[in-house]
């Protein structure tokens, strides 16, 4: 029971780090980026390829995964995404589906369609049992929770206590007024997009062992990222965090207790929540 809760929290934390970039993109530019999972996949493959082909150790590879995805996000933002902000949502959706399809096929072509395995370093293997096995904690999952919690706190601090965070919040609230006050919204967004993509890559790298990694990763998990954002709302960090935890726990518990229903519970829950509160569970007021 507690073990399930623990696994669910680890899963949820991972989803939070994966989806937070999407949430910011959506809140800031009102851009529906279905290709977000592709950045996560880029991070995951960076980790796997660095470890397998170049023989890098685990930790530097994780950092590199962040850097590569962030760079990729930066490049694509400047060259492609920037032109799509003013277009209707349908165009944005099709554009990002197109990017996702390209990413899936490209990875399939260059790396192959097999599931990738990650060799964890020794110090992250193993398991601690507490209270006669009532709570079993995999060390890797524990590390994931710690890292993601630190990241969440760091992001919260960045958002609330720095000048950049204030500018970002102002731009999310009202882009035109923010621009009028002399905030360079384009630069803010470029930086945010890069960091969001980097975090997705980091999540993809950390999650490669837990979630699995193959070329259809962006399509398989797209719905999960979107659930986090749609249910959590885009107005704060806590909304997506709670939504991600809820989703993680519901998914793990659902698959354990009623494996016959599989992901059915999660999808039904999402549809019902969105029918009940279309702006998300944790949104401020409604617009």
């Amino acid at each position, binding site marked *: 029971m507690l073990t399930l809760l623990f696994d669910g929290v680890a899963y949820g934390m991972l989803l939070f780090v994966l989806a937070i970039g999407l949430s910011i993109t959506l809140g800031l530019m009102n851009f529906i980026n279905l290709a977000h999972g592709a950045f996560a996949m880029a991070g995951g493959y960076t980790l796997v390829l660095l470890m397998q082909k170049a023989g890098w150790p685990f930790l530097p590879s994780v950092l590199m995964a962040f850097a590569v995805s962030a760079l990729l996000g930066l490049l694509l933002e400047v060259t492609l995404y920037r032109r799509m902000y003013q277009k209707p949502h349908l165009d944005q959706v099709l554009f990002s589906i197109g990017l996702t399809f390209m990413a899936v096929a490209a990875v399939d072509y260059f790396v192959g369609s097999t599931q990738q395995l990650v060799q964890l370093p020794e110090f992250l293997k193993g398991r601690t049992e507490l209270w006669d096995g009532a709570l079993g904690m995999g060390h890797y999952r524990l590390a994931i929770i710690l890292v993601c919690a630190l990241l969440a706190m760091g992001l919260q601090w960045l958002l609330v206590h720095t000048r950049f965070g204030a500018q970002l919040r102002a731009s999310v609230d009202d882009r035109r007024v923010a621009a009028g006050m002399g905030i360079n919204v384009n630069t803010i967004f470029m930086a945010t997009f890069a960091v969001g993509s980097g975090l997705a890559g980091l999540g993809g790298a950390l999650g490669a062992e837990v979630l699995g990694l193959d070329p259809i990763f962006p399509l398989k998990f797209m719905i999960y990222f979107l659930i986090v954002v749609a249910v959590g709302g885009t107005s704060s960090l806590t909304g997506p965090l709670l939504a991600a935890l809820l989703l993680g726990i519901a998914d793990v518990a659902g698959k354990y207790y009623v494996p016959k229903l599989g992901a059915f519970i999660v999808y039904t829950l999402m*549809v019902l929540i969105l029918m009940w509160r279309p*702006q998300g569970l944790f949104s401020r007021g409604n617009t």
Partner: protein
Amino acid sequence: MSAVSDSLRSRAGARWWEFAIWLLLLVLPLLLPKHSLLISEITIIALFAMSLDLVLGYSGIVSLGHAAFFGAGAYTAALFAKHINPDPLTGLVFATALTAVLGLVCSPGILRGSDLTRLMVTLGIALILQELANKMDQITGGADGLQGVVMGPVLGYFEFDLMGQTAAWYALAITLLVFLMLRKLVHSPFGFSLKAIRDNRLRAQAIGIPVHARLITVYTLAAAIAGLAGGMQAQTTSFASLDVFGFDRSADVLLMLVIGGTGWLWGGIIGAVVFKTLHSMVSALTPQYWTFWIGLFLVLLMLVGREKLLRPWTWGRRS
């Protein structure tokens, strides 16, 4: 007043080329008997795209899960033929009615919230149904697909043949009927009120259009037509599998509509023909990686603006 109604009515008439194309389409299974199966496949997809156009092009609702209704229709028709009655038309009516009810039940989800909410609800419904079909494997056959469907002859007279000529005519005839009905519909006051809702929902409400009732009606109708298309697909292939609910299917049909142009009935037909032709050409070259080229096509199309695709004379201009 009469000038307005004249100008609105002038567009409603069928042009000569529309008759010519439909005549050509109807004799196509005679001209190309070897490609009958492909003809029926494309026709069914075109009908599916038309039903999405009703939601997307005419009412402005972005749906990422229209395959939910296509799949529901397919499974209903296949199960109906297998367990209740092998007559195709009865099965089709049943499948259409059932998906209409499903559409009605799902329609509250598309009324409120932002585009993202609608995307998620439509996508979620398709996923729920896919998951259901997957897990209820004693009825649906699960991941293996529903096999052992034997169809009776159409109207008690025309057997489905191996060449697929009957299937092609069956699909073409029903699609033509729906096309005529939709043509009537979109040029009626009802159709104009939908466009008004799409263009400015607030204003439409202000001039007295019952927005929610209209959207529920059109969504239910679109679901029914998608179910009809799915039912025909299951009947002509005697098979239904999980991929009828797939995300790829919803995405493909969106792409078809965009190729053919949204907001006019021919868009779905043109899009389906072009898409299937492209598909078979590209996958003949690179069978495994054709999604890459489709993706590239989508990205480029969206960057230059999809409205330019159908208007070659604007290609030189900047948007």
